[in-house]
Each structure stands twice: as structure tokens, then as C-alpha cells.
């Protein structure tokens, strides 16, 4: 597991591959199965998640350590994190629309969806649970985000193939997607123990 005294690169690698958020930790599966139908949307969603996740973790880390802890309000953690993230995603959407129109066109419709993407909230909770400092939290989040991107893009590639394959009727659609995910998860499980993680 991850702790404060690990090196930055190890934290990144652990978050991205060994404890891949989708395939090993089962977080954010709704979007994983929901939008991985096409390569293009997966890439868009992947970028949007990485981007929002970094911002959201920074903000919630600051909120936790400079507001909730000094004022002894730890029981508001869940409520404050989700509200901060939801508000922040809205702000971010407006900001990107105004300042970077091409970027907005590329990932515009995925931004609102991210509020209900558990990966963002989970990353914010996990860095608190692991008791990481701000820099390590950011590196960890970056790893989680890249892990998400990596897994969803690969999965979309495989699904484009399985859609054309002759599959028995009851397994068409979601069931075969789950079996595919199972095999991918098995492959990722092979990284367990890498560098003693």
C-alpha cells in the first residue's frame, strides 16, 4: 500500500498500474462500461478525467487540511468534498469554454458527467486516507488519472473488436464486456508485487 515515505515514481507507478483504479480497485466502472463503446469518446473522457482529477484533489486537499482539520469539522468530509468538486467542475467548464474553446469542444460534454464519476471523489478520499502531503497527493492523482486513461482506451480498443465477433446471443453486449474486463484485470494482476508494491 501507499505511504508517505515512498518515492514519487513508485507512488505514480503504484497508482497507475499495480493498483489500477478501474481494473483492480473497481472505482468509476459506470463510465468504464458506459462510454467505452468508441475509441474517440474514451480518449475524450480519459483526458477530461485526468484534468479534473488533478484540480479536484488539489482543492479538496486544501479544504481538508486548512478548513476541516483546524475547525474540527471532519464529519463534513463527504459532504464538503462532493460539493466542492461539483461546484468546481461547473466553474471549470465555464472557464474552459471562455478561455480555450478548442479544448472545450474536445471534452465539453464529458465535463458535467465527471461530477458523478466516482474516480474523482475516490482519489480525493484516498490521498486523505493514505495521509499524503500535497506534492505526493498530486503525483498519486496523476498516476490514478493516467491509469484510468490507459485502461479505458485499451478497453475501448478491445470492445471495438468484440462488437464484430460472433458471440453467443446471451453474451452479446455487456456480458462479454465484463468477461473482457475480467481478462484485462487478470493481466493487470500480474503486476502485483512489482518493485515490492
Amino acid at each position: 500500500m501507499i505511504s508517505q515515505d515512498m518515492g514519487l515514481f513508485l507512488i505514480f507507478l503504484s497508482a497507475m498500474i499495480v493498483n489500477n483504479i478501474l481494473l483492480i480497485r473497481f472505482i468509476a466502472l459506470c463510465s468504464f462500461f458506459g462510454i467505452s463503446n468508441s475509441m474517440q469518446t474514451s480518449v475524450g473522457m480519459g483526458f477530461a478525467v485526468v484534468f479534473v482529477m488533478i484540480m479536484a484533489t488539489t482543492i479538496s486537499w486544501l479544504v481538508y487540511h486548512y478548513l476541516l482539520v483546524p475547525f474540527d469539522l471532519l464529519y463534513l468530509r463527504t459532504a464538503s468534498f462532493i460539493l466542492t468538486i461539483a461546484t468546481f467542475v461547473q466553474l471549470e467548464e465555464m472557464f474552459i469554454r471562455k478561455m480555450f474553446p478548442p479544448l472545450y469542444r474536445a471534452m465539453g460534454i464529458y465535463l458535467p458527467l465527471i461530477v458523478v464519476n466516482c474516480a474523482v471523489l475516490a482519489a480525493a478520499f484516498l490521498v486523505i486516507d493514505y495521509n499524503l502531503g500535497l506534492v505526493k497527493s498530486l503525483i498519486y492523482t496523476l498516476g490514478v488519472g493516467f491509469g484510468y486513461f490507459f485502461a479505458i482506451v485499451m478497453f475501448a480498443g478491445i470492445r471495438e473488436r468484440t462488437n464484430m465477433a460472433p458471440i453467443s446471443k446471451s453474451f452479446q453486449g455487456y456480458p462479454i464486456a465484463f468477461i473482457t474486463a475480467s481478462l484485462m484485470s487478470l493481466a493487470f494482476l500480474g503486476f502485483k508485487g512489482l518493485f515490492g508494491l
Partner: protein
Amino acid sequence: MSTEAIPIPVAARQRTRSRLGKELTKGIIVENPILIIMLGLCATLACSTSATDAFGMGLAFTFVMICSNVVVALVRKITPHQIRIPVFITVISTFVTIVDYAMKAYTPLLSRSLGVFVPLIVVNCIVMGRAEAFASRNGVAASFMDGVGMSIGFTLIITLLGAIRELFGNGTVFGLRVLPAGYQPFLIFILPPGAFLVIGFMMAAQKKFFQKGGAK
């Protein structure tokens, strides 16, 4: 979650009484939240390594689902349409915090094995989805029934999944030994790939046996 403005149907309230039974049963098979609507997968897969964990998750989810459905139905008329989502999230996260603290106090072992997934009920799409799609447009009684039905459907599937994985992966169900002691457990069923595999087969079975009769 749809963001378009849909007015609350007034006539729906008069019909609720006759529909209550239907609201209760539809969540179990026809509109089962996990197998048909494909929501709430994260908690389902992650918390089903054993039947006990799965059932605990089911109970926590039941509490949040029913309470938030009722409260959302109560406040649906005084909530301005534009800010309904933050209001729902606040309601849900209040109940999630209650469950989280209660579990930490009374069942610390279960709380530790479920870990981050208890606070994550807040973004469990089933709760939010039912608040938005059902409780914000229906009366308190109907929303209560809908919550109960959805919770039963969720708890049923997650416990079944947990039991299957525990049976093959450990030879036990709810901690009781079922298979003979010489049984060599398939460890893979308890590990993450097993969850995907079992739910894939469960969905295929559901598709084969329940969707023929015009369920959907």
C-alpha cells in the same frame, strides 16, 4: 442523469396508491438496478469478496437509498429546479455520513473491509439516479416503495455475487464451510478478475432466462 427540465406530473400523485405494489416489485427483477440499468457497479464488484461484506454493503445502501428517496420526495416542491442536484447531493451525503459513522462505531471490522466504498455511496449512481428520475417527481409513499424495491434488488444481487465468489474462492458462504475441507479454492474468484467474470455470467444468465417474457 438527465439535465433537461421535466415538469412534475400532477396526475401521478392520484395514481400512486394503486401503483405502490408495482413500485416495490419492479426494482427486484424488471428494473434491477445492477443487472438491467447497469448502475452502482463499483460498490457491487468491490464489496462482494465475501457474502458477509456484500450483505453489509447492501444494508448500508438500503438505509441511504430509502432515507434519501423519502427526503427528496418531501422537499421536491420547495426545491428550485436549477439547484436540485446540489440539494440531492447534500441530502444523500448526510445519510452517507450517518451510515459511515454508525458502521465505524458498531461494526468496525466490516467498516474496515468496505473501506473507501462507504463514503463512495454518495456518488453511487443508483441513489442519485432514483432521486432524480423517481423521487423528485413522485409522492413520499411511492418514493419509499421505490427505494425499498431498488434496495432489495441491489442487496439480492450483491449478496448473490458475494456468495458465489466466496463459495468458489474460499469454499464457504457467510463464513460457514459448504464445500468439503479437501476443496482446493479457486483464489481467482476472490481477486478482482473473479468479480468481473461472475457478474458477466450473471448478466448473461439474466438475459437468457428473464428477458424472453417481454420484461423489457
